[in-house]
C-alpha cells in the first residue's frame, strides 16, 4: 500500500440528525389555514460546529487542487485563482437581473465581449450565453434545429450520431422528440458509408464531437459535412473536446452549423462538484435569428439586452445564463490570449500522447495511436486475473489519483478514458504511468478489494438502488 496517500475519515453523522424533537412554530404571522404548525427539522447548531462539519467533509473530497484528475471527457484542468477572486467582487455578485441596463454596463460589456471571443474561437457568427451547461447547450442547439425546420415547413424527425457520442447527445435529441439513429464507427471514426445510408430526408441533424471521444480526430470531417448537408440536414458540434484544437482548427472551418462550448471544461471554470457550468451556443449566420433571447448587443458605446431576434426559440432558462461562470471564462480567455489558448491545446495534446505512449505497453490501445487531448485504453488484459477496469480504477484511488472515466465510450471493451489536460507536468504523468504498471503487477486480491486508502471502502451502489434512501426522511422511514 502506498503510504503517500491517505484520505481523511471523520465520523460521518449528518448535521440534520441533531434536530430537536417536533418543535411547534410560535407566533406564526400567517393565517391559521395556511400556517405551518411544526417547524421543519433543521437543527440549531453553533456556527463553529457547522464550519467544522463542512471542513471535515471537504477533507473527505478529492478535487483538481488535491491531485491528478484524468477524468476523460471532463477536462479537469487546474482552475486559476484570479477568477475566484473576481467572483467575490461586489460589483460582480451583487447585481439583480432586472436592474436598469445603464447600471450593469460592466457586466453587459463582459458578456458582449465573451460572445465575440467565443464566436472567434468557434468560427461561428453569433453566440448565446444563456445555456447553463453543456447538455443544455445541446438541447438549445437542437431546439434551434427544430425551430429552423418548422419554419421551413420541413418535417425531419431523426437525429443521427456515431456510437462514440456522449450520452448527453442522444438524451438531448430524445428530449426534443427526435428519434436517434446511432451509426457504428469504423476504425474508431465515422464510417462514411454508414453515414450515407443513415442520413436522408428525415434527418434533422448529425451530432459529432471532433476529436471524438476516443481522442481521434475525424479527418473526413469535410466529407462528413458534405454528406450531411447534402441530405438537407444540419451539422451539430459537441464542444466537449474543444480543448484539443484551439488555434489549429475550429468548428466553423469544419463546416459545422451549430455548436456548444463547455466553459467549465475548455475555459477553466471550476466544476463545482458537479456544477454550475455554462454551455454557450454558437451558430452560423443563417441560424442567428433562431438563438435564444436576449443577446447582448452594442449600440454606440452602450450595451443593451436585445430581444429582437426574428425567429428566436425564446428561452431555455431564466435570465441570461450563469453569469458568474461567464465572468471566470472571460478572465481566463483574457489571460491566455491568442498564443496562450493555442499553447493550451498543444500542451493538452502533447500530454495526452506522451501518456498514451507510456501506457500503451501496459494496457491495450485500440485504434491508431495518434490522439488529441484524450485517449481510451482497454482493460481487457485484466480479465485474465479475474479483474476488471473498475478494479484498476478503484486501486488508482489508493495512490492518490482520481480515476479516469471508465466504461465509456461503449465501443471499447473495459474502457479507460484518460484526459490528462495541459496543466499537468511530465513528472505527474510519469508517476501515474508507473503506478498503473505497478498495479498491473500487484496481487489481484489487493486490487480487487481496493480502495483501501480512501475515506470509505468500495461502495455498494447496487444496494443503494435496491432500497433507495434519498434523504434523511427516507432513512427514518426505513427504521420505523
Amino acid at each position, binding site marked *: 500500500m502506498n503510504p503517500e496517500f491517505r484520505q481523511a475519515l471523520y465520523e460521518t453523522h449528518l448535521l440534520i440528525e441533531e434536530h430537536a424533537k417536533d418543535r411547534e412554530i410560535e407566533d406564526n404571522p400567517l393565517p391559521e389555514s*395556511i400556517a405551518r404548525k411544526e417547524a421543519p427539522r433543521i437543527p440549531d447548531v453553533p456556527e463553529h460546529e457547522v464550519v467544522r462539519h463542512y471542513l471535515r467533509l471537504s477533507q*473527505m*473530497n478529492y478535487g483538481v487542487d488535491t491531485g491528478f484528475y484524468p477524468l476523460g471527457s471532463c477536462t479537469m484542468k487546474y482552475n486559476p485563482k484570479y477568477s475566484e477572486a473576481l467572483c467575490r467582487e461586489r460589483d460582480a455578485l451583487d447585481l439583480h437581473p432586472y436592474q436598469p441596463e445603464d447600471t450593469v454596463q460592466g457586466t453587459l460589456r463582459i458578456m458582449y465581449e465573451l460572445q465575440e471571443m467565443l464566436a472567434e474561437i468557434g468560427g461561428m457568427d453569433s453566440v448565446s450565453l444563456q445555456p447553463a451547461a*453543456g447538455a443544455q447547450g445541446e438541447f438549445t442547439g437542437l431546439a434551434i434545429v427544430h425551430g429552423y425546420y418548422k419554419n421551413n415547413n420541413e418535417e425531419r424527425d431523426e437525429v443521427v450520431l456515431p456510437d462514440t457520442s456522449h450520452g448527453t447527445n442522444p*438524451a438531448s435529441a430524445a428530449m426534443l422528440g427526435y428519434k436517434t439513429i446511432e451509426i457504428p464507427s469504423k476504425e474508431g471514426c465515422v464510417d462514411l458509408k454508414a453515414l450515407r445510408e443513415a442520413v436522408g430526408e428525415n434527418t434533422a441533424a448529425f451530432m459529432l464531437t471532433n476529436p471524438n471521444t476516443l481522442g481521434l480526430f475525424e479527418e473526413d470531417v469535410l466529407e462528413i459535412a458534405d454528406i450531411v448537408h447534402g441530405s438537407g440536414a444540419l451539422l451539430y458540434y459537441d464542444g466537449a473536446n474543444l480543448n484539443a484544437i484551439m488555434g489549429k482548427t475550429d468548428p466553423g472551418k469544419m463546416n459545422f452549423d451549430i455548436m456548444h462550448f463547455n466553459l467549465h471544461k475548455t475555459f477553466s471554470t471550476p466544476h463545482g462538484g458537479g*456544477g454550475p457550468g455554462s454551455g454557450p451556443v454558437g451558430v452560423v449566420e443563417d441560424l442567428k435569428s433562431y438563438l435564444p433571447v436576449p443577446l447582448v448587443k452594442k449600440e454606440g458605446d452602450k450595451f443593451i439586452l436585445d430581444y429582437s431576434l426574428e425567429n428566436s426559440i425564446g428561452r431555455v432558462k431564466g435570465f441570461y445564463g450563469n453569469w458568474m461562470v461567464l465572468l471566470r471564462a472571460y478572465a481566463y480567455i483574457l489571460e491566455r490570449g491568442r498564443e496562450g489558448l493555442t499553447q493550451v491545446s498543444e500542451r493538452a495534446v502533447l500530454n495526452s500522447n506522451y501518456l498514451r505512449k507510456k501506457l500503451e505497453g501496459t494496457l491495450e490501445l485500440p485504434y491508431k495511436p495518434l490522439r488529441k487531448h484524450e485517449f481510451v485504453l482497454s482493460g481487457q488484459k485484466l480479465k485474465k486475473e479475474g479483474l476488471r477496469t473498475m478494479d484498476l480504477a478503484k486501486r488508482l484511488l489508493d495512490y492518490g489519483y482520481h480515476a479516469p472515466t471508465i466504461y465509456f465510450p461503449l465501443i471499447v471493451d473495459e474502457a479507460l478514458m484518460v484526459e490528462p489536460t495541459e496543466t499537468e507536468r511530465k513528472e505527474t504523468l510519469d508517476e501515474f504511468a508507473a503506478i498503473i504498471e505497478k498495479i498491473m503487477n500487484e496481487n489481484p486480491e489487493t486490487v480487487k478489494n481496493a480502495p483501501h486508502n480512501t475515506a470509505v471502502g468500495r461502495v455498494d451502489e447496487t444496494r443503494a438502488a435496491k432500497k433507495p434512501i434519498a434523504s434523511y426522511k427516507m432513512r427514518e422511514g426505513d427504521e420505523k
Partner: protein
Amino acid sequence: MEETKEMLDHLGIAGVEELFKDIPDKIRSELKLEEGLTEMEVMNRVKDILKENRSLSEFSNFMGGGIYRHYVPTAVNEVVSRSEFYSSYTPYQPEISQGMLQALFEYQSLICELTGMEAANTSMYDYPTALAEAILMSDRINRRKKHRFLVPENIHWEIEPVLKNYLRGTDIILEWVKYDKTTGQIDKEDLKRKAGDDMLGFFVSSPNVFGVLEEDTKFYSDIKDETGSVMVAGCDPLSLTLLQPPSEWGADIVVGDSQPFGIPPSFGGPTVGIFACKGRYIRRMPGRMIGETVDKDDERAYCMLLQTREQHIRRDRATSNICTNQSLMALASAVHMFVKGGKGLEKIAKKNYDNAHRLASLIEDIDGYSSPSFDSEFFNEFLIGNQKMIDLKEFKERCKNNDILPGIPLGSWTESKFKELPPSLLIAVTEMNDAEDMEVLVNTLQEVKE
C-alpha cells in the same frame, strides 16, 4: 523548454505540430484574439470594467421577481471556497468523494424537510427548468391518452418560453388557467372547468409571481384526488419555514429556486433549481440524486443513486439529458440553512414578512395606490397598483435620481407583462431593507402621484 523536449523525444518527434498532422490543411485556422495578459493585468482590467456596474448595495433595493437579495452569512463563502469541493466534479468515484456526496445528501434532506417531500435531487438549473422537467416527469408518472397539463397564468413571465422549448418535441399540451383578478390566486372556477381525469397534471405556485399565497389549499388536493393527476407545486424555500409545506396539500412534485439561501443575486445565475418528489416516484426523477448506502465493511457511505435513469447510461431513454448541474450552489444553500439553523431561518422569514407588510401598509396610505393590489395574504413580495396612468418614464427618472430600484413594473404601463392589470409594481422586501429604504421609496411614490 527542457520538459517539452524530453516529451517530444519520447514520442520520437521534432515538434508538437506533428501531433496535429491529422488535421487537414484545408480546415486549419488561427485564433484572432488579443495577446495574453499577466494575472495583474487581468485583475486590473476586469475590475475596471466591473466598476461600470452599480451594485445593489448602492441602492434602496426592492427587486425580486425570482431573484432576491438576502444576507449571505460569511461562513457560507468560506465553505464553498474550499477547493476540495469546488475543484471536484460529479462524484463518479464515490470512495474518494464522500465529502461532496454527503454534503449533497444533506442538501436533499433539507429540501425534503422544507417541502415535506421524501426525495430530492441535487439540483436542476433553476426554477423554470425545474418546472419544465416536472411536467415531463408527470408524463412519465401518468401516461394518459390526452396529454394536457394545466398551468396558471400567474407564473413568472420567463417561465412560459422555457416550457415551450422543453415541450417542443412532446405531445404535451399546455392549457392556461386564469387567475382571479381580485385575489391574484388561481381562478378556481376556471381550474375546475378545465380539470378532468384526462389530464396529466397541474401546477400551483404559492407564492406565485405576484407574491400571493394560495389560501384555499384544500381545493387543490381535492382537484388532484378527483382527477387522479399529478400536482406540481412551486415554492419559495424561505417562506416554507412558516408556510404549510406543499406535501400537506397534495403535491407530488415540488419545484422552486433555493437562491434565497446562500446565493447572491449574481445577475440571475447561477442559482439552484429545487426538485423534490414523493418517494414512490423516485425512479422517474430527472438529474443526479445522492443516496445512502454502505461500503464493503458495512460502514455508512454515499453514492449517486439510480444512475441507470441518467444519460451517461441510458442515453436516449434517460429521464433527462442533464449532466452538469448546480451542485456547488446546492452546497451553499445547505450551509446557509445550517449556519442560521431552524430557529434562525424562522426569524429571518418573520422579518421578511414583517418588513414587507409594513411597507405595503405605508404605501396603502398614499392616496391613489392600492397596496397590496390583490386581496390575499403574501410573504415577502407583493404587487401595488395605481389606477391612474402614471408616466413610467418619469417614475423611472425619479427612482434613478433617488438611487431606488423600486421593484419590477408590471401591468398596462409595460409592453407585455400582465397588461390586463393597471400600472403596477412588483415589490420584494427582505431582511436587508431598513426603515430608511422604505421611506425613500414611499416618498418617491408620493412625488410621482403629485
